[in-house]
Protein backbone atom coordinates (compact mmCIF):
# COMPACT_ATOMS: atom_id res chain seq x y z
CA UNK A 1 0.00 0.00 0.00
CA UNK A 2 2.77 2.46 0.97
CA UNK A 3 5.85 3.53 -0.99
CA UNK A 4 4.13 3.17 -4.35
CA UNK A 5 6.76 5.19 -6.24
CA UNK A 6 9.64 2.77 -5.69
CA UNK A 7 7.36 -0.20 -6.23
CA UNK A 8 5.85 0.94 -9.50
CA UNK A 9 9.26 1.94 -10.85
CA UNK A 10 10.54 -1.55 -10.19
CA UNK A 11 7.53 -3.20 -11.82
CA UNK A 12 7.43 -1.04 -14.93
CA UNK A 13 11.17 -1.26 -15.52
CA UNK A 14 11.13 -5.04 -15.70
CA UNK A 15 12.89 -5.53 -19.05
CA UNK A 16 12.85 -9.29 -19.85
CA UNK A 17 11.29 -9.12 -23.29
CA UNK A 18 10.79 -12.85 -23.62
CA UNK A 19 8.85 -13.11 -20.39
CA UNK A 20 5.44 -12.04 -21.76
CA UNK A 21 5.55 -14.65 -24.53
CA UNK A 22 6.51 -17.28 -21.94
CA UNK A 23 3.55 -16.25 -19.77
CA UNK A 24 1.11 -16.55 -22.68
CA UNK A 25 2.70 -19.94 -23.45
CA UNK A 26 1.68 -21.02 -19.90
CA UNK A 27 -1.77 -19.51 -20.55
CA UNK A 28 -2.31 -21.77 -23.53
CA UNK A 29 -1.35 -24.91 -21.58
CA UNK A 30 -3.72 -23.92 -18.76
CA UNK A 31 -6.43 -23.06 -21.30
CA UNK A 32 -6.09 -26.43 -23.01
CA UNK A 33 -6.17 -28.26 -19.66
CA UNK A 34 -9.29 -26.24 -18.81
CA UNK A 35 -10.99 -27.30 -22.05
CA UNK A 36 -10.13 -30.98 -21.47
CA UNK A 37 -11.45 -30.79 -17.88
CA UNK A 38 -14.65 -29.10 -19.05
CA UNK A 39 -15.10 -31.70 -21.76
CA UNK A 40 -14.70 -34.59 -19.31
CA UNK A 41 -16.96 -32.77 -16.86
CA UNK A 42 -19.58 -32.38 -19.57
CA UNK A 43 -19.23 -36.07 -20.44
CA UNK A 44 -20.31 -37.17 -16.96
CA UNK A 45 -22.81 -34.49 -16.07
CA UNK A 46 -25.30 -35.98 -13.59
CA UNK A 47 -27.96 -33.27 -13.95
CA UNK A 48 -27.61 -30.30 -16.26
CA UNK A 49 -28.94 -27.62 -13.88
CA UNK A 50 -26.84 -24.96 -12.12
CA UNK A 51 -26.41 -27.14 -9.00
CA UNK A 52 -25.29 -30.04 -11.15
CA UNK A 53 -22.66 -27.78 -12.71
CA UNK A 54 -21.39 -26.52 -9.36
CA UNK A 55 -21.19 -30.09 -8.00
CA UNK A 56 -19.25 -31.14 -11.10
CA UNK A 57 -15.63 -31.03 -9.93
CA UNK A 58 -13.86 -31.30 -13.33
CA UNK A 59 -16.10 -28.58 -14.76
CA UNK A 60 -15.39 -26.21 -11.87
CA UNK A 61 -11.67 -27.01 -12.05
CA UNK A 62 -11.81 -26.14 -15.74
CA UNK A 63 -13.42 -22.78 -15.06
CA UNK A 64 -10.84 -22.04 -12.35
CA UNK A 65 -7.97 -22.81 -14.73
CA UNK A 66 -9.55 -20.43 -17.25
CA UNK A 67 -9.56 -17.77 -14.54
CA UNK A 68 -5.88 -18.29 -13.75
CA UNK A 69 -5.07 -18.34 -17.46
CA UNK A 70 -6.80 -14.97 -17.96
CA UNK A 71 -4.87 -13.52 -15.03
CA UNK A 72 -1.58 -14.62 -16.59
CA UNK A 73 -2.65 -13.08 -19.90
CA UNK A 74 -3.29 -9.73 -18.20
CA UNK A 75 0.12 -9.82 -16.50
CA UNK A 76 1.74 -10.63 -19.84
CA UNK A 77 -0.12 -7.80 -21.61
CA UNK A 78 1.23 -5.31 -19.06
CA UNK A 79 4.72 -5.65 -20.55
CA UNK A 80 4.06 -7.10 -23.99
CA UNK A 81 2.42 -6.03 -27.23
CA UNK A 82 -1.16 -7.13 -27.80
CA UNK A 83 -0.54 -7.74 -31.51
CA UNK A 84 2.32 -10.09 -30.60
CA UNK A 85 0.71 -11.97 -27.69
CA UNK A 86 -2.89 -12.44 -28.82
CA UNK A 87 -2.09 -14.75 -31.78
CA UNK A 88 0.10 -16.91 -29.49
CA UNK A 89 -3.15 -18.04 -27.85
CA UNK A 90 -3.62 -20.19 -30.98
CA UNK A 91 -1.16 -22.62 -29.35
CA UNK A 92 -4.20 -23.77 -27.37
CA UNK A 93 -5.33 -25.63 -30.52
CA UNK A 94 -2.06 -27.55 -30.50
CA UNK A 95 -2.32 -28.67 -26.86
CA UNK A 96 -6.02 -29.53 -27.18
CA UNK A 97 -5.31 -31.70 -30.22
CA UNK A 98 -2.47 -33.50 -28.44
CA UNK A 99 -4.42 -33.90 -25.16
CA UNK A 100 -7.56 -35.09 -26.99
CA UNK A 101 -5.44 -37.71 -28.69
CA UNK A 102 -3.86 -38.84 -25.40
CA UNK A 103 -6.99 -38.74 -23.23
CA UNK A 104 -10.05 -39.16 -25.45
CA UNK A 105 -8.27 -41.14 -28.22
CA UNK A 106 -9.40 -38.59 -30.80
CA UNK A 107 -7.78 -39.15 -34.18
CA UNK A 108 -4.91 -37.04 -35.45
CA UNK A 109 -5.02 -36.86 -39.27
CA UNK A 110 -2.60 -35.23 -41.75
CA UNK A 111 -4.68 -32.02 -41.80
CA UNK A 112 -4.49 -31.57 -38.04
CA UNK A 113 -0.80 -32.44 -38.05
CA UNK A 114 -0.10 -29.86 -40.79
CA UNK A 115 -2.13 -27.29 -38.85
CA UNK A 116 -0.22 -27.96 -35.64
CA UNK A 117 3.15 -27.62 -37.36
CA UNK A 118 2.08 -24.34 -39.02
CA UNK A 119 0.76 -22.86 -35.75
CA UNK A 120 3.92 -23.78 -33.84
CA UNK A 121 6.07 -22.31 -36.62
CA UNK A 122 3.97 -19.15 -36.65
CA UNK A 123 4.30 -18.72 -32.88
CA UNK A 124 8.05 -19.27 -33.14
CA UNK A 125 8.26 -16.56 -35.82
CA UNK A 126 6.20 -14.20 -33.63
CA UNK A 127 8.27 -14.97 -30.54
CA UNK A 128 11.61 -14.48 -32.28
CA UNK A 129 11.25 -11.99 -35.10
CA UNK A 130 8.11 -10.14 -34.09
CA UNK A 131 9.91 -7.45 -32.15
CA UNK A 132 11.22 -5.52 -35.13
Amino acid at each position, binding site marked *: *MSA*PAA*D*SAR*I*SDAPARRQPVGLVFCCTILGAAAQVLMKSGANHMANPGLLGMIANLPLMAGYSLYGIS*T*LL*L*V*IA*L*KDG*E*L*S*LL*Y*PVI*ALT*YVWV*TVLSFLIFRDH*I*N*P*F*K*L*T*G*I*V*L*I*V*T*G*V*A*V*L*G*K*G*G*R*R
Partner: protein
Amino acid sequence: MTTPVSHMLLVLLAAFIGSFGGVFLKAGSAELRKGWMYLVIAKEPPFFNWRLAAGVAMFLLSSYFFVLGIRPPGELSVLYPMVALGYIFTLLWSRIFFKEPFTRGKVLGLFLIVVGVFFVGLGSK
Protein backbone atom coordinates in the same frame (compact mmCIF):
# COMPACT_ATOMS: atom_id res chain seq x y z
CA MET B 1 -20.89 -27.15 -47.49
CA THR B 2 -23.82 -27.28 -45.10
CA THR B 3 -22.84 -24.71 -42.48
CA PRO B 4 -25.63 -22.10 -42.39
CA VAL B 5 -24.65 -18.48 -42.86
CA SER B 6 -26.23 -17.67 -39.48
CA HIS B 7 -23.66 -19.94 -37.77
CA MET B 8 -20.83 -18.26 -39.68
CA LEU B 9 -22.08 -14.85 -38.54
CA LEU B 10 -22.26 -16.06 -34.92
CA VAL B 11 -18.64 -17.22 -35.03
CA LEU B 12 -17.53 -14.02 -36.77
CA LEU B 13 -19.31 -12.03 -34.06
CA ALA B 14 -17.54 -14.14 -31.42
CA ALA B 15 -14.16 -13.44 -33.06
CA PHE B 16 -14.95 -9.72 -33.29
CA ILE B 17 -16.03 -9.42 -29.64
CA GLY B 18 -13.08 -11.54 -28.53
CA SER B 19 -10.61 -9.27 -30.33
CA PHE B 20 -12.02 -6.29 -28.41
CA GLY B 21 -11.77 -8.35 -25.21
CA GLY B 22 -8.03 -8.41 -25.82
CA VAL B 23 -7.98 -4.64 -26.34
CA PHE B 24 -9.74 -4.01 -23.02
CA LEU B 25 -7.51 -6.47 -21.12
CA LYS B 26 -4.46 -4.70 -22.56
CA ALA B 27 -5.85 -1.27 -21.59
CA GLY B 28 -6.75 -2.51 -18.10
CA SER B 29 -3.38 -4.19 -17.61
CA ALA B 30 -1.61 -0.80 -17.69
CA GLU B 31 -3.14 -0.06 -14.26
CA LEU B 32 -1.10 -2.97 -12.87
CA ARG B 33 2.03 -0.83 -13.20
CA LYS B 34 0.86 1.03 -10.10
CA GLY B 35 0.69 -2.21 -8.07
CA TRP B 36 -1.05 -5.55 -7.88
CA MET B 37 -4.15 -4.29 -6.08
CA TYR B 38 -5.02 -2.26 -9.19
CA LEU B 39 -6.01 -5.55 -10.77
CA VAL B 40 -9.34 -4.91 -9.04
CA ILE B 41 -9.54 -1.32 -7.80
CA ALA B 42 -9.05 2.06 -9.46
CA LYS B 43 -8.39 5.56 -8.12
CA GLU B 44 -10.99 7.28 -10.26
CA PRO B 45 -14.72 6.53 -10.46
CA PRO B 46 -16.11 3.89 -10.82
CA PHE B 47 -13.25 2.85 -8.45
CA PHE B 48 -12.76 -0.58 -9.95
CA ASN B 49 -10.70 -1.67 -12.94
CA TRP B 50 -13.63 -1.59 -15.34
CA ARG B 51 -11.46 -2.14 -18.41
CA LEU B 52 -10.32 -5.54 -17.12
CA ALA B 53 -13.89 -6.38 -16.11
CA ALA B 54 -15.11 -5.40 -19.59
CA GLY B 55 -12.38 -7.52 -21.19
CA VAL B 56 -13.37 -10.58 -19.16
CA ALA B 57 -17.08 -9.96 -19.92
CA MET B 58 -16.27 -9.76 -23.65
CA PHE B 59 -14.35 -13.05 -23.53
CA LEU B 60 -17.35 -14.71 -21.83
CA LEU B 61 -19.77 -13.22 -24.37
CA SER B 62 -17.46 -14.26 -27.20
CA SER B 63 -17.34 -17.88 -26.01
CA TYR B 64 -21.15 -17.87 -25.71
CA PHE B 65 -21.59 -16.86 -29.37
CA PHE B 66 -18.81 -19.27 -30.37
CA VAL B 67 -20.61 -22.21 -28.75
CA LEU B 68 -23.88 -21.17 -30.44
CA GLY B 69 -22.06 -21.00 -33.78
CA ILE B 70 -20.30 -24.39 -33.64
CA ARG B 71 -23.50 -26.26 -32.71
CA PRO B 72 -24.58 -28.74 -35.39
CA PRO B 73 -24.91 -28.27 -38.32
CA GLY B 74 -21.97 -25.84 -38.02
CA GLU B 75 -18.75 -27.41 -39.33
CA LEU B 76 -15.45 -26.68 -37.61
CA SER B 77 -13.63 -26.83 -40.95
CA VAL B 78 -15.57 -23.74 -42.03
CA LEU B 79 -15.84 -22.03 -38.66
CA TYR B 80 -12.29 -22.34 -37.24
CA PRO B 81 -10.74 -20.12 -39.93
CA MET B 82 -13.25 -17.44 -38.95
CA VAL B 83 -11.99 -17.62 -35.37
CA ALA B 84 -8.53 -16.99 -36.74
CA LEU B 85 -9.85 -13.80 -38.34
CA GLY B 86 -10.05 -12.50 -34.77
CA TYR B 87 -6.24 -12.46 -34.69
CA ILE B 88 -6.20 -10.24 -37.77
CA PHE B 89 -8.72 -7.86 -36.19
CA THR B 90 -6.45 -7.74 -33.13
CA LEU B 91 -3.46 -6.75 -35.27
CA LEU B 92 -5.51 -3.79 -36.55
CA TRP B 93 -6.83 -2.72 -33.13
CA SER B 94 -3.31 -2.94 -31.66
CA ARG B 95 -2.08 -0.49 -34.26
CA ILE B 96 -5.04 1.85 -33.92
CA PHE B 97 -5.38 1.92 -30.11
CA PHE B 98 -1.85 1.17 -28.86
CA LYS B 99 0.28 2.36 -31.81
CA GLU B 100 1.94 -1.06 -32.05
CA PRO B 101 3.73 -1.26 -35.42
CA PHE B 102 3.11 -3.87 -38.09
CA THR B 103 6.33 -5.83 -38.54
CA ARG B 104 7.33 -8.48 -41.04
CA GLY B 105 7.66 -11.03 -38.24
CA LYS B 106 4.16 -10.33 -36.93
CA VAL B 107 2.51 -10.52 -40.34
CA LEU B 108 4.39 -13.71 -41.31
CA GLY B 109 3.77 -15.36 -37.91
CA LEU B 110 0.11 -14.41 -38.01
CA PHE B 111 -0.26 -15.72 -41.57
CA LEU B 112 1.23 -19.10 -40.57
CA ILE B 113 -1.06 -19.29 -37.52
CA VAL B 114 -4.20 -18.45 -39.52
CA VAL B 115 -3.37 -21.08 -42.16
CA GLY B 116 -2.54 -23.54 -39.35
CA VAL B 117 -5.90 -22.97 -37.64
CA PHE B 118 -7.54 -23.43 -41.06
CA PHE B 119 -5.87 -26.86 -41.37
CA VAL B 120 -6.80 -27.91 -37.81
CA GLY B 121 -10.37 -27.00 -38.77
CA LEU B 122 -10.13 -29.07 -41.97
CA GLY B 123 -9.02 -32.06 -39.92
CA SER B 124 -11.79 -31.69 -37.32
CA LYS B 125 -15.10 -33.41 -37.70
